């Protein structure tokens, strides 16, 4: 008889010290200095290092044979949870009972050595993933078949193309047979055909009676594979139940926007008499949103205020202003610039405080994350300049009005441009 539970987590919590994150490799000197400081202060009055609870009291029970998807935005604690379940890192508090053998796939190709041949790497990688030598040998043919690599088995993997490499890595991982499988973001690798094969293998695993925990951003795949979902937010479980409902809650959560508060932002240039204080994104109805949609209208609302002790010059207005928002990709490469100078003929005079709105009628960006640079000038003097200060998340939308989405492989590779083709 199978055990009723595969996993039972009780109030697990994980704390990271932020100091350690910023400087993960303290040198001996730092440590000695720190120690001396602690000694010189009385009774541990040292200011505690800032800390972050990546997980904060997460409890759940997972039955044997259940396939569960864990969703949540970046930083919600999904990866930390998988790391704790797979024993890579310890929880700070709490307790987890595990019934059965656990295998984890947080990455494909873990431990591949470039100098070793494909055959050698199958054994090395398999054993790193927790397979017994006998098991690997028994499934060897199957793995090679799946990876479509016959004839290259004795070639060092450093000579493999990246496609071959990923295929081999996934093939080994897919033949892992623990009772409980933890999977992080490895669903789709390789070219389109192989991706389909991977997803097929995944649903085979999911339906094979094993307990599986998936973490992925691919909501379509999650919906297809998992019946139950757990939504994490800020290190806590905020929803747990049938996948569809959980995904709905998750996607709704993405739409609720909090304005980017810029008042505490220190990395800025300019005279600073007038400064941006907050940024919001709004849709066509003026409702705050947290992301843009390709092809839909997007309004970037910029709150600004005059610094304390400063007063606008003439008639309580800042004269001759120029404001711009530059949009760049995540590497900081500027894609385009929306500047008031380009679209407004007359010089603008601004009141002491207010909100500037930049309206983009059809957002020409494909699904990706982008960075905004904000710029404000008064009378040819730079007042506030925040380089790459704000992140804008864009999701796929019907930009071309044809119902066709920008293909996956092209995403983030540039700006969408309206165009037409005339054919003979």
């Amino acid at each position, binding site marked *: 008889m199978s*055990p*009723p*539970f595969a996993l*039972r987590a009780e109030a697990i919590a994980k704390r*990271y010290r932020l100091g*350690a994150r910023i400087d*993960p*490799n*303290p*040198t*001996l*000197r730092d*440590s000695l200095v720190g120690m001396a400081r602690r000694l010189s202060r009385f009774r541990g009055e040292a200011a505690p290092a800032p800390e972050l609870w990546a997980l904060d009291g997460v409890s759940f*029970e*997972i*039955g*044997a*044979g*259940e396939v569960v998807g864990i969703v949540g935005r970046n930083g919600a604690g999904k990866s930390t949870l998988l*790391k*704790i*379940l*797979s*024993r*890579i*890192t*310890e*929880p*700070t*508090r*709490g*307790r*987890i*009972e*595990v*019934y*059965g*053998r*656990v295998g*984890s796939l*947080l*990455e494909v190709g*873990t*431990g591949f*050595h470039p*100098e*070793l041949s494909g055959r*050698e790497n199958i*054994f*090395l990688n398999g*054993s*790193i*993933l*927790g397979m*017994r*030598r006998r098991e690997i040998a028994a499934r060897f043919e199957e793995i090679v078949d799946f990876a479509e690599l016959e004839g290259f088995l004795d070639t060092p993997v450093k000579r493999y193309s990246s496609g071959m490499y990923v295929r081999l890595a996934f093939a080994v991982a897919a033949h892992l047979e623990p009772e409980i499988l933890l999977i992080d973001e490895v669903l789709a690798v390789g070219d389109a055909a192989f991706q389909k094969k991977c997803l097929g293998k995944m649903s085979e695993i999911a339906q094979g009676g094993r307990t599986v925990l998936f973490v992925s951003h691919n909501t379509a795949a999650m919906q297809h594979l998992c019946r*139950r979902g757990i939504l994490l937010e800020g290190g806590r479980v905020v929803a747990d139940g049938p996948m569809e409902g959980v995904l709905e809650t998750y996607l709704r959560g993405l739409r609720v926007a909090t304005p980017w508060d810029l008042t505490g932002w220190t990395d800025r240039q300019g005279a600073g008499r007038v400064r941006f204080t907050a940024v919001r994104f709004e849709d066509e109805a003026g409702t705050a949103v947290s992301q843009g949609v390709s092809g839909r209208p997007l309004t970037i609302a910029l709150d600004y205020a005059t610094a304390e002790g400063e007063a606008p010059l003439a008639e309580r207005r800042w004269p001759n202003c120029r404001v711009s928002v530059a949009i760049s990709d995540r590497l900081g490469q500027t894609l385009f610039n929306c500047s008031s100078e380009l679209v407004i003929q007359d010089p603008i005079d601004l009141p002491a405080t207010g909100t500037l709105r930049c309206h983009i009628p059809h957002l020409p960006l494909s699904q990706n994350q982008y960075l905004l640079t904000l710029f404000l000038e008064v009378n040819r003097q730079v007042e506030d300049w925040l380089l790459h200060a704000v992140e804008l998340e864009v999701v796929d939308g019907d930009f071309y009005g044809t119902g066709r989405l920008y293909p996956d492989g092209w995403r983030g590779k540039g700006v969408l441009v309206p165009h037409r083709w005339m054919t003979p």
Partner: protein
Amino acid sequence: MRIQTEEESVSRPPDLVIEPTSGWRQPLALGDLWHYRELFYFLTWRDVKVRYKQTVLGAVWALLQPLGTMVLFAWIFGRVARLPSDGLPYPVFAFAGLIPWIFFSNALGSAGNSLVGSSHLITKVYFPRILIPASAVLAGLVDLGISLGGIGGLMAWYGIRPTWWLLMLPLLVGMTVLLALGVGLWLSALHVRFRDIRYLIPFLLQIWLFATPILYPRSVLPERYQWLSQLNPLSGLIEAYRVALLGGGAPLPFDWPGLGLSAVGTMLLLITAIYGFRRMERTFADLV
């Protein structure tokens, strides 16, 4: 989402309980080590296999490394400085000490850097971390075997015959491995937290080489410093190697108390290293 009732779940204890651990009272988790014995084999095998990939001379380096060092030191210390060598030809004398030394220093070097070099494994998959430095130490045994063959040739050249003391060799090699493991575990674990270790290791090895009677016999040390040399667990070991390998060639007494002291020092280092390592192990994935 319960599939069966609470009561049934009580019937079977969990296979694994994940909880925070703290303090020095760590279980040694020997069962865990046994469970991962195959991975230990594969990691060691990988280190051996990869060692001389894409080198022209391959495993010949295992012989060239001590041989080159020996020729250099034989010239400097044997010819120029005219160090005594307990009545043995200086090249053989030095070579017999350099063989275990080179194994030891390579082992410390690779074990010391092993955890940081395997950060991609540590952050992605669980297994007892001790396997990483341990396999780095063991992988050097192949080289040690090859260079032991080399000294056979050198002894034949000088007409030195092996004696029954040679049977001590496996014991001595075992002790060297344990000593290298003890120091290697400390270095590798501290290296995860303090990247200073990378720069400290070559310096430590240089001091250790000259603080150990490898290139000189212990008899050249003044009487009142002899005890200091004995504190170094490698001293007794190196001298024992010399007797085991060259015993027939020179009137060398086998220094049992010296070897005993080495054994005690080795065990102390190893035990503290294992506990220290276990204690630091749980933060590796967060720090590496």
